[in-house]
């Protein structure tokens, strides 16, 4: 645990958010906790309550974690620490509708193979959430990845440093679910702050989570085919289990005691529609499949991701299914001169991504925004702002970041608006939410400075990009272009080139760069499914290719270095300040030199 030492420099009268384990309290000697009063009043601020019209100039009063008053003419209590809100806007604390924030085991503990199925050991470099879920549920009768009883609550781990990024985007609370698996587990709504795991919990459990990415490791299910059947069989088993348990409870005499199965137990509320089920689905067909599965078992489903939800809008509306729209819009990959050009389908998806929310709004589909596995938190609000391209108004966007997720997650009685009596989660900005800057957030009534996030930790871009790959098989060497997009632990993309063109499936990426996906390839004998398994190290990917009936092949490939700019054959980009020559091996981006070699060359030109 780390104490945020830099808070010592703060001048605003905000209490430092000291996230400290009890041991530090013991180190302080006498006091176990600090007894600083926690009453704040933000005055003279613009206030967007979401519960009513905007207040141009008003005051919000927070006491002991609850909003006690908000309005244009609210009195400031005598004991309050006053924050001058001149030039500031106060919003209800933003809610990330779907994430894995706040989950993590002991960092650096590595692969604790507790419970069954300890495969999928993760090492250093794994996110805390992935490490935690690698351990699995204790005493489960089902393998890792098919353990619906796993709960976010058991994995909660307050980590001020990990929260800094989301907080800089104004996020104060999130639905948090285990990061991997098919039945991923039970999510909780958590506040991104607090001194203990328990203090984080706002409501738990709120939903069961289902993902459709088959796991690495080779056991069943190792393909999307098996994923659906495994889900279906477990849900059927859960129905049967419920009937069995009910029959036994009614009259145990003479019946053999049915085995208790925590996994099937955990599915009962979902089957009875008491608990919603969040399903990860982005493309049109993925969403249709998720809705079909939900219909088959009468589940109350919420779609998460939803990139092509507009194509299914009518059905979503008719079946009353909300969508948690990912703000992790696809990014344009580095140009690679040897690579095949991107398909129009991919270009279109990138250009149209911001317009989705507006289309859903028009179609009357309920939605909220989620981070979608982004690693660059500056994207969260920037992309939320871009939804205006689809006709979404600022108010609608704000609602989708506040009250709508609260409603969808069943916590709108305590979060989502600024109203007296609700939890004091606030987001304070200088300027407009989408174009200004988040200055601070309040979480459970405790103010926390927001700082521009550090450079993206790179996890999101581990796999994303355009790779040029040579596949060596019993038919010789073939060149292909692999365009990948990483979303959380899932991989999507397209393969084009000497093996034909195909969308990849069953794609996943581990924290250490372990990569797996399948694609249809056409060899001389016919069209087969090739399973690519490999590792990404920096900008090189290498691994093996397995095609049923063929001896194993290998593949290796590269992605352009950021520094290479136009690459071997491309025309060097025209740069501001004109006339800088760019050669392979060193480059310029945004006018800022990246390598020393470049610097020397520049000096050489000046001389």
């Amino acid at each position: 645990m780390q104490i945020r030492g830099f808070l010592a420099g703060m001048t605003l009268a905000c209490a430092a958010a000291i996230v400290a384990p009890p041991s530090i309290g013991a180190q302080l000697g006498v006091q176990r906790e600090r007894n600083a009063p926690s009453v704040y009043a933000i005055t003279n601020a613009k206030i967007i309550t979401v519960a009513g019209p905007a207040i141009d100039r008003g005051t919000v009063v927070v006491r002991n974690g609850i909003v006690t008053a908000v309005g244009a003419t609210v009195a400031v209590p005598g004991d309050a620490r006053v924050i001058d809100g001149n030039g500031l806007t106060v919003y209800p604390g933003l809610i990330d509708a779907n994430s894995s924030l706040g989950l993590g085991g002991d960092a650096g503990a590595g692969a604790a193979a507790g419970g069954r199925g300890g495969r999928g050991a993760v090492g250093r470099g794994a996110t805390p959430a992935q490490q935690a879920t690698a351990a699995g549920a204790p005493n489960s009768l089902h393998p890792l990845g098919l353990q619906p009883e796993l709960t976010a609550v058991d994995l909660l781990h307050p980590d001020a440093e990990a929260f800094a990024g989301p907080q800089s985007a104004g996020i104060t609370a999130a639905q948090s679910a285990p990061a991997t698996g098919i039945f991923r587990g039970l999510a909780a709504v958590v506040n991104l702050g607090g001194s203990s795991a328990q203090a984080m919990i706002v409501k738990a459990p709120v939903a069961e989570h289902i993902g459709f990415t088959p796991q690495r490791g080779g056991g069943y299910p190792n393909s999307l085919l098996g994923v659906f059947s495994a889900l279906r069989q477990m849900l059927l088993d859960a129905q049967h289990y419920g009937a069995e348990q009910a029959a036994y409870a009614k009259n145990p005499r003479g019946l053999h005691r049915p085995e208790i199965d925590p996994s099937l137990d955990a599915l009962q509320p979902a089957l009875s529609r008491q608990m919603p089920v969040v399903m990860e689905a982005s493309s049109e067909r993925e969403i249709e499949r998720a809705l079909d599965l939900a219909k088959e078992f009468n589940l109350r489903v919420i779609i998460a991701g939803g990139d092509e939800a507009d194509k299914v809008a009518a059905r979503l509306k008719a079946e009353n299914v909300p969508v948690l729209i990912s703000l992790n819009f696809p990014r344009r990959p580095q140009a690679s001169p040897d690579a095949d050009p991107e398909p129009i389908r991919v270009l279109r998806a990138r250009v149209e991504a911001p317009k989705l929310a507006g289309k859903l709004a028009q179609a009357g589909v309920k939605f909220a925004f989620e981070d979608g596995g982004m690693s660059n938190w500056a994207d969260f609000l920037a992309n939320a702002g871009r939804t205006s391209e689809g006709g979404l108004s600022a108010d609608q966007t704000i609602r989708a970041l506040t009250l709508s997720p609260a409603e969808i997650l069943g916590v709108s009685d305590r979060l989502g608006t600024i109203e007296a009596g609700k939890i004091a989660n606030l987001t304070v900005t200088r300027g407009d939410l989408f174009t200004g800057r988040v200055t601070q957030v309040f979480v459970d009534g405790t103010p926390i400075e927001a700082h521009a996030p550090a450079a993206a930790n790179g996890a999101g871009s581990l796999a994303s990009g355009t790779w040029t790959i040579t596949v060596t098989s019993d038919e010789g060497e073939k060149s292909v272009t692999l365009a990948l997009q990483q979303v959380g632990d899932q991989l999507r993309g397209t393969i084009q080139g000497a093996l034909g063109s195909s969308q990849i499936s069953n794609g996943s990426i581990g924290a250490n760069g372990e990569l797996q996906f399948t694609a249809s390839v056409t060899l001389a004998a016919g069209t087969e499914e090739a399973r690519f398994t490999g590792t990404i190290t920096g900008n090189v990917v290498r691994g093996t290719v397995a095609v049923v009936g063929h001896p194993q092949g290998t593949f290796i490939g590269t992605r352009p270095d950021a520094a290479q700019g136009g690459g071997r054959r491309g025309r060097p980009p025209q740069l501001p300040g004109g006339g800088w020559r760019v050669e392979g091996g060193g480059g310029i981006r945004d006018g800022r030199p990246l390598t020393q070699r470049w610097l020397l060359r520049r000096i050489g030109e000046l001389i």
Partner: protein
Amino acid sequence: MQIRRTLAAGSLCVLPAFSLGAQLGSFNPPPGPQGTFAIRGGHIVTVTGADIPNGTVVISGGKITAVGANVQAPPNAQVIDAGGLMVYPGMIETGSSVGLSEIGQGAVATVDIQEVGSFNPNAQAFFGIDPHSAHVGVARVVGITTVVSRPTGGIMSGQAALINLAGDTPPKMAVVPRVALVIELPRSGFGGRGFARAAAQQGSPADASRTRQLQMDSLRSMLRDAEAYGKAQSAYAKDKTLPRPAHDVVLESMLPALGGQMPVIFPADRANDIRDAVTFAEEMHLKPIIMGGQEAPTVAAFLKQHSVPVIVTAVMHLPSREDDPYDINYTIPAKLAAAGVQFAISTGDRGSEIRTLPYNAGMAAANGLSKTDALKSVTLWPAQIFGVGDRMGSIDVGKMANIVVTTGDILEAKTDTKYLFIDGRPIPLDTKHTQLNAQFKDRP
């Protein structure tokens, strides 16, 4: 349409009894002896000139000795009645490795297509080809009489052989035992040739470029060494006072290519790779043939300007990009023809499927190439590209008697072969497949 069964009626060939043992290659019956034959009354497609709707072809001593509407059969000739049939020159498949690989998956002992190491200019297909490969028999009965069979892999793969599909030993098959050198240039963007083997544990894209650079340097230095070697050898031959240069089989093997007498096959499909190959060849004074040519239409002007021929193996390939038009590869030959680029059509198959060669040409004809050009692209043009255009590829007096007599258009799938001559020898139309058919078709 009636199909007449291919029973060798009034046959010229005695069908030897074959054991149907499963060992490779008991299935290619040997050719009959050369003699004098007159194929009479057929519709002759000469390829070089106008068709002769009702004419006679005379074969003697392995050559075509007469062609025409009013040609008389010599008195001692065996006469073949070709009434109602078509007479074509044998087709030539230039993009395969026939005889070097029998069963690709699961029987590595039958695969001799790729030698170990990156630089094998002296690895000759001629010494790896199995004349008794069952692929030989089944391919020739559709009218493919001649193939260029090449090794693959590495950077210098070896030397291809131009062989007839008849003869029970390689010398008997060979028309040109060493017809072309094969060089597979490393490609930078895709990790360089053999990057998979060369890469260090922690690779980077810079490594890929570096590997390629090293490989290109090695290739250049090898060719330059060979050039120097050749110069020293011929200098010594004229002037024995010079120090006697040692012999080197590897360098020796590259001399014909460096002298421009032997062309060099460069497999290349992408536009950049095609350009690189041609540029490299010109730098090193080699005579390039592009093998593959999937993106050749986009560099057609360049190819024409540099007079580089292309063996198109991509006609039946799936489009490699999602947004490509569905017929992008079917139309390659038509585009090259329109641009004036010299080309031939090939299946690109290693061996067992080369019998689909005529249909590749047919598909090109269905997509913009004229029917006559389509036929040329599998007869005369491949012969010319490999320097044997004066010896085969058409029905002309003086050429090798590689002749196919068929029931219809040789590029059509329903067409059957009635008679086959290779090097002026009659070829029995029995193959492994006809034998198995005979054995099982009436099994109760």
